[in-house]
C-alpha cells in the first residue's frame, strides 16, 4: 500500500453512537458468461476494454474510510461469481436483505438477476448497461442505474453537434441488433435537438470487392452531403477505420472520433486529476492492474458506492444495518462525481443524472450539457429521458 495506507492509520474520535452501522455491499459477477474479445470479429484484436468493477469498488470504499469512521459505518463487502450453468436464484440467496447489490453481469443474466432481486426487495445497481430498455420497459422498482443511459450519451452528442452547427449527420452503423437499437436512440437524440440525418448506412463485415459500397469507408461515406459522420459500432470494430477515410473531409463522432463517455483520464478540473491518480496508484488485494483510468462501468461502480457515502448525512443510522432503500428514496441523495456538478437520482426511472464528457483519445473537448441547453429544474436533465418523456414512472 502506498499513499492510501495513511487512511488506515487515522484515528478519529467518534462521539455519537457506540455500535457501528453495517453497510452491506454485494458485487455479483458471472465470469463464465463473459465474452472476452467481443471486438474480434473483423479486426482480430481486442478493441474494447471490459474489466470487472472490483477495483473501482475497492477504491471507492477505501476513499470512503474517513467518512465511514465519522458516521460509524462498518462496510461489509461480499463477492459472488455466478455459475450460469446452474439456476441463479439459489446462488443469490446469501445476499443480505439490506445489501446494496451491484450487478456486473452480461445483459441476459443481468435481467434475470435484477428481476429476482428486485422482487425480493433488494436494491440492485446497474453500473454497466446503458441500454434504454432497462430504464424504459424493464423499469424495476428496486433497480437503479449509475451508468448513463444510451440516450444521455447521444443527447450529449446531439447538443454538441448543434452547438458546433454541424447539423447534417450521416449515420454509419454496424450489422448487429445492438447497433440497430442504438441507431434508433441516436436518431431520437438528433431529432430532439434539431439535427438532420442525411442518410443511414450499414457497414458489412467483409473484405470482398463486390461489397465495397458497404465495407470501404470511402464508398460508404460517398454520394451524400453531410457536416459530420456519426458511427455506431458497439463492439468498436470497423468504426476505427472511418476517421481520415471519409469521402468528404468531415469530423467523425459517436463510437469513434469524438466519443461521449462518463469518465476520462484527461479531465483536468473539478478534482478529477486527484481521483485518476488515486485509481492509478491504488493497490488492494487480488485486483486487476489499473489501466490509465476507470472505464465507464468502473466509474459507475465507484459512483454507486460514493452515492451512499456522500449521502450518509441523510441516512437513518439508528439501526445496526444501513438501509440503502431509505437513502435512495430520499430526494436529497447526492454524489460528488468530480465532474463539476453533483449527481442525484431521477425519481421517475432511477437514473443517476450527471454531466457527460465529449472526448477524443487524449482530451475532453466539452462537458455536456452544452451552453444554452437549459432545463427548468435540473442542470443535467436535458440529457436523457425527462420526466414527461419517460415511459417508466417509478415516482
Amino acid at each position: 500500500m502506498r499513499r492510501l495506507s495513511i487512511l488506515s492509520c487515522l484515528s478519529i474520535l467518534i462521539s455519537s453512537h457506540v455500535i457501528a452501522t453495517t453497510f452491506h455491499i454485494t458485487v455479483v459477477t458471472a465470469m463464465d458468461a463473459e465474452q472476452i474479445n467481443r471486438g474480434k470479429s473483423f479486426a482480430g484484436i481486442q478493441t474494447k476494454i471490459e474489466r470487472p468493477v472490483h477495483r473501482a469498488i475497492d477504491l471507492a470504499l477505501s476513499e470512503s474510510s474517513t467518512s465511514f469512521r465519522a458516521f460509524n459505518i462498518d462496510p461489509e463487502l461480499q463477492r459472488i461469481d455466478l455459475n450460469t450453468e446452474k439456476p441463479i436464484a439459489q446462488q443469490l440467496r446469501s445476499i443480505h436483505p439490506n445489501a446494496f447489490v451491484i450487478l456486473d453481469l452480461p445483459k441476459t443474466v443481468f435481467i434475470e438477476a435484477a428481476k429476482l432481486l428486485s422482487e425480493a426487495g433488494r436494491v440492485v445497481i446497474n453500473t454497466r448497461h446503458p441500454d434504454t430498455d432497462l430504464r424504459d420497459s424493464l423499469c424495476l422498482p428496486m433497480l437503479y442505474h449509475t451508468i448513463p443511459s444510451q440516450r444521455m450519451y447521444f443527447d450529449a452528442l446531439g447538443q454538441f453537434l448543434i452547438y458546433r452547427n454541424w447539423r447534417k449527420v450521416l449515420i454509419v452503423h454496424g450489422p448487429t441488433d445492438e447497433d440497430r437499437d442504438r441507431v434508433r436512440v441516436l436518431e431520437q437524440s438528433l431529432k430532439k435537438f434539431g439535427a438532420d440525418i442525411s442518410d443511414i448506412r450499414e457497414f458489412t463485415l467483409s473484405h470482398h470487392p463486390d461489397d465495397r459500397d458497404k465495407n470501404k469507408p470511402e464508398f460508404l461515406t460517398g454520394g451524400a452531403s453531410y457536416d459530420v459522420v456519426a458511427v455506431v459500432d458497439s463492439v468498436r470494430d470497423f468504426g476505427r477505420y472511418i476517421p481520415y477515410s471519409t469521402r468528404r473531409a468531415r469530423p467523425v463522432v459517436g463510437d469513434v472520433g469524438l466519443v461521449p463517455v462518463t469518465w476520462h483520464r484527461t479531465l483536468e478540473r473539478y478534482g478529477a486529476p486527484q481521483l485518476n491518480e488515486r485509481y492509478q496508484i491504488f493497490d488492494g488485494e487480488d485486483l486487476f492492474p489499473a489501466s490509465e483510468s476507470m472505464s465507464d462501468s468502473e466509474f459507475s461502480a465507484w459512483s454507486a458506492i460514493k452515492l451512499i457515502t456522500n449521502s450518509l448525512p441523510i441516512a437513518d443510522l439508528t439501526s445496526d444495518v444501513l438501509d440503502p432503500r431509505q437513502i435512495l428514496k430520499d430526494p436529497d441523495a447526492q454524489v460528488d462525481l468530480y465532474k463539476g456538478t453533483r449527481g442525484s437520482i431521477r425519481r421517475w426511472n432511477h437514473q443517476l443524472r450527471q454531466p457527460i464528457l465529449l472526448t477524443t483519445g487524449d482530451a475532453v473537448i466539452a462537458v455536456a450539457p452544452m451552453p444554452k441547453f437549459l432545463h427548468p429544474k435540473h442542470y443535467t436533465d436535458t440529457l436523457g429521458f425527462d420526466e414527461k418523456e419517460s415511459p417508466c414512472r417509478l415516482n
Partner: protein
Amino acid sequence: MTIRQHTPLDLLRVLLMAMAFATASVAYSFEALISNERSGDLIHINPQGKTTHVVRICNRPRGMTKGATESDAVIACSDDNMIVVYDRSKRVITSSIESVPGAMNVSFHPTTGRIIVTNEGIAQASVYELDTGRLLAKLPTGLEPDGVVITNDGQTIFVASENAGLVHVFDGTSYQSKGLIRTNLRPRRIALLDQELWVSSEMGSRVEIFHVETLEKLDEVIFAPKGFRPEQMTPVDILFNPSANEAYVALGSANHVAVVDINSREITKYILVGRRAWGLGLSPDGKVLAVLNGLSDDFTFIDLDTKRPLLTKRAGLIPHSIEVFK
C-alpha cells in the same frame, strides 16, 4: 453639441460611470498579489488593475496568505512541495520550507508565527514554525484537504477534507483531534467570523455556518441567482468585510459573487464576474473586492459602494489566490 442627441438616462449613466472611474483612480491605494497556478508566477497589481510586475515564483503556486510583515506573502508551491516567503517590496523569495508534500493551502497565525499547510495528496495538514521551518505537527485528515484556518487565540485549527465531506477540528496546542464537523458535499474553504465558522460546500452549492466552540450547525446560505439551476452553484472562497457587515462568496461555475448580510445571512446581491470565480481579496479600506476568475485567466475589481464591477483585467494562467496589501 453631441450630448443633446442622448436621452437624460444616457447622460446619467455617463455621469455615474465618470464618477465611478474618478473614485477608482483617486481614492484607492493598495497593491494586490495574485498567484497563477499554471504559469507559475506572481503578478503585482495596482489599484487601476495594471500588472506592474510579473515574478516567476515556483511550480504551481496556489494558496497564499499574508506573512509576518506587510510586505511578506506566504505561498504554497504545490508541485515543488515547498512553502516560500515572498517579499513584495524587494520582489524576491526570502525564505522557504522544503519537503512539504502537495502544499495546497496555507494559513498564518501571527502571534505564534506558525503556519498550517494542507498537504493535498497525502490526506494531511501540517504545522510549521515559519521562521525556522521546523515541523511542529502532522494532522491526519480525510482525502483532498483544502481550506485551513486557525482561530485568533491559536487554540483551534480547522481543516476541510473535500473528499470526506468533513471539517477536522484540532487542538491548536496539543494538535490532538477534538472533533469533526460533517458538511455538505465537497467542503472547500473555511472562514472565521467571531464564533462562527463559515464553510463553502462546492458540490452542495451552499455555505454552511457552524459554531466555533460547540461545532453545531447554526445556519446555511443557499445560492440561487436568476437563470441558474441549483447544482450550478459551486462556491469556493468566502471573505468577510465586517465594517460593511458583509460576506462575499465566489460562486465558481455560476460566474457570480454573492453578497451576504453577516447578521441576517440573507443574500443581498449577485454580481456577475468572469468564468469560475473562486479566489477573493479585499482592499485594506474595504472599498474594493477583487475576484479571481479561474477559467478565464482574469480578475475583476468590484466597487463595494455601488456593488458594480470596475474593471476586469488579464491575470496569469489559472489565477488561484489573491492577497491585497496596503
